[in-house]
């Protein structure tokens, strides 16, 4: 009996290659445990939702997509090993990891094997290494900061600005990008206040920012610190605009800062609350499927999969190299590819540009108040 089973299993294995030709294999290499759990799970769920829809509609070039999912444990070393394994299994494309630290090391494997790799990572360095197989599913600081700078100067009309940033890679990177973007503008930076990660008392930092008497204060710290800064700003009676990037109006900050979060304004690259019918429909589909509302990582995974589909269809054959090449300079319109949710274009580095949103916290909820055009459009 046992032997018969083994024989059967071997036979099944033997017939796999024939089957594989009929399917397109995609590997999800994501954070399903550790600090990246939320991001990774949302990203994976987004990819799988798109795959189910694509398969139901007849697949890509008539072939079904087959996904496999593995857990990086939010660990770069594990991510690298799993990517190597996926490469050995001859997948057509890799989705993930989402964490910048992980993709920075794992993308060497997909690059060597010439496999397109879509990431949710947002560190600027990912696409500055000349890797022709890496593609983003969201903005970097290098795209987001010029957008927010444009808003500060043109819409908020702030002539003077105080900066409060956190002194780590994330905070310094963002601060430098913003300063560069504001260099030639009408807005002058009048106070540049560095704070520590995990800092608790922000009274001195806020006081310094306030003393310079700016038209607005820009806050660029992680979630908990942002909440504390907002509380301190309220305490010290600050009533002029508080502006941030993504983090400042995130659900976590609102939850932690409570009342003090109201009125904070921030640019966000992706949000399920965007006033776009396709995005609303996606939000509803996702919630129906998984019984919760996704953050931006679900959108990254979902749209990433549809971008891959569009690129393959453009090339017309299952050729990884040709697909990666076609991705550079690719311009996609929602009218032709509804699954991408928003018009998007990729540059030669694998970075993308598209609409983004301005949000404000009102009554403890993040609300989209405006749509900001892509950087390439003036």
């Amino acid at each position: 009996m046992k032997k018969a089973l083994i024989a059967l299993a071997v036979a099944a294995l033997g017939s796999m290659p024939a089957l594989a030709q009929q399917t397109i294999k995609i590997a999800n290499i994501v954070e399903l445990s550790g600090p990246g759990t939320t991001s990774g799970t949302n990203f994976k769920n987004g990819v799988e939702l798109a795959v189910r829809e694509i398969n139901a509609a007849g697949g890509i070039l008539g072939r079904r997509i087959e996904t496999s999912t593995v857990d990086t444990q939010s660990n770069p070393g594990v991510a690298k090993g799993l990517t190597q394994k996926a490469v050995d299994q001859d997948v057509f494309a890799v989705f993930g990891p989402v964490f910048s630290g992980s993709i920075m090391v794992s993308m060497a494997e997909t690059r060597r094997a010439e496999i397109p790799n879509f990431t949710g990572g947002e560190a600027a360095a990912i696409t500055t290494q000349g890797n022709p197989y890496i593609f983003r599913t969201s903005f970097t600081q290098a795209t987001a900061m010029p957008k927010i700078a444009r808003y500060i100067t043109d819409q908020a009309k702030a002539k003077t600005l105080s900066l409060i940033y956190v002194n780590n890679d994330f905070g310094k990177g963002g601060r430098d990008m913003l300063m560069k973007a504001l260099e030639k503008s009408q807005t002058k930076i009048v106070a540049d206040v560095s704070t520590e990660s995990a800092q608790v008392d922000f009274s001195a930092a806020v006081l310094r920012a306030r003393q310079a008497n700016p038209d607005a204060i820009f806050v660029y710290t992680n979630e908990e610190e942002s909440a504390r800064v907002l509380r301190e700003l309220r305490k010290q009676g600050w009533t002029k605009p508080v502006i941030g990037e993504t983090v400042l109006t995130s659900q976590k900050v609102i939850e932690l800062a409570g009342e003090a979060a109201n009125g904070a304004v921030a640019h966000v690259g992706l949000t399920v609350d965007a006033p776009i019918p396709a995005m609303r429909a996606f939000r509803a589909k996702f919630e129906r499927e998984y019984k919760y509302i996704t953050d931006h990582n679900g959108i990254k995974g979902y749209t990433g999969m549809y971008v891959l589909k569009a690129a393959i269809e453009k090339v017309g054959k299952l050729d990884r190299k040709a697909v990666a090449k076609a991705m550079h300079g690719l311009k996609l319109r929602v009218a032709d590819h509804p699954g991408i949710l928003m018009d998007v274009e990729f540059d030669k580095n694998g970075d993308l540009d598209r609409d983004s949103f301005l949000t404000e916290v009102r009554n403890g909820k993040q609300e989209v108040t405006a749509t900001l055009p892509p950087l390439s459009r003036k």
Partner: protein
Amino acid sequence: MTDLLQLTFSGIATGSIYALAALGFTLLWQASGTINFAQGEFVMLPAFAMLFFAAQGAPLPVAFVLTIAVAVAVLGWAFKRGVVDPLFRHGMMAIVVATIGLSIAMRNGVRIYSADAHPFPSLFADKLLRVGGVTVSLADAGTLAFALVLVVATQAFLARTLTGRAMQAVAQNTESAAVLGINVPLMILYTFAINAVLACAAALLVTPVYFGKFDMGESLGTKAFFAAVIGGFNNSRGALLGGVIVGIGENLAAAYISPAYKDAVALALFMVVILFKPQGLLGRKEERKV
């Protein structure tokens, strides 16, 4: 001038938070001659316990009482039996190293459960008081008041009650205390139980500001240790003084020197005190048999 006052008041508020954690250091030292480097985590765990009970539907006061019960058992009795008792005869160094290890284990244990920051309900209403251009939140004032009460109560208990004096006697000379008929193991157990209760009280006051997070005890524990040394390790009032000095010093340095040096202030004060007054500002020289 208003700015200076504002900074000072904020510093006092932060300082009283440090003081609450520092109180545990001075208590354990005065009454059992041990140093617990997991003191910050001893505040973090009750915070999560309260969040857990609250998530089960318990109102905050009930969650607090339940947490005290659990804390006395785990952070009091189990900590004494599991870590301090077996290592006591190997001297202080063994306990210090063990508690450092324990703090790492506790942090990462909680991290597996949740790596996120959790908001924590405040005991005090979300109100701002404006006094002569200076804004003080009700929570800041309340924390300071609570810290004062706890410090005075602890000091009074140790100095004025029979049990308290017996506990100090045990720490100063265990053998003589035993000869005098003091129940040594019971006194030491009391010390750890009281430390656990203080940690719960600190958690209740500190967490609305720090948020419930696995690593909230890390900086809190370090600052509290510095505060305790600056104020005087063998004096509970020293914990409060040390905490407030560190809190104010940090704020003034951040505003008038550079925010980048904020975290160095506690360390600099610590070194100055160690060099010139090693027993701490309010501490007294003591001889003890370890």
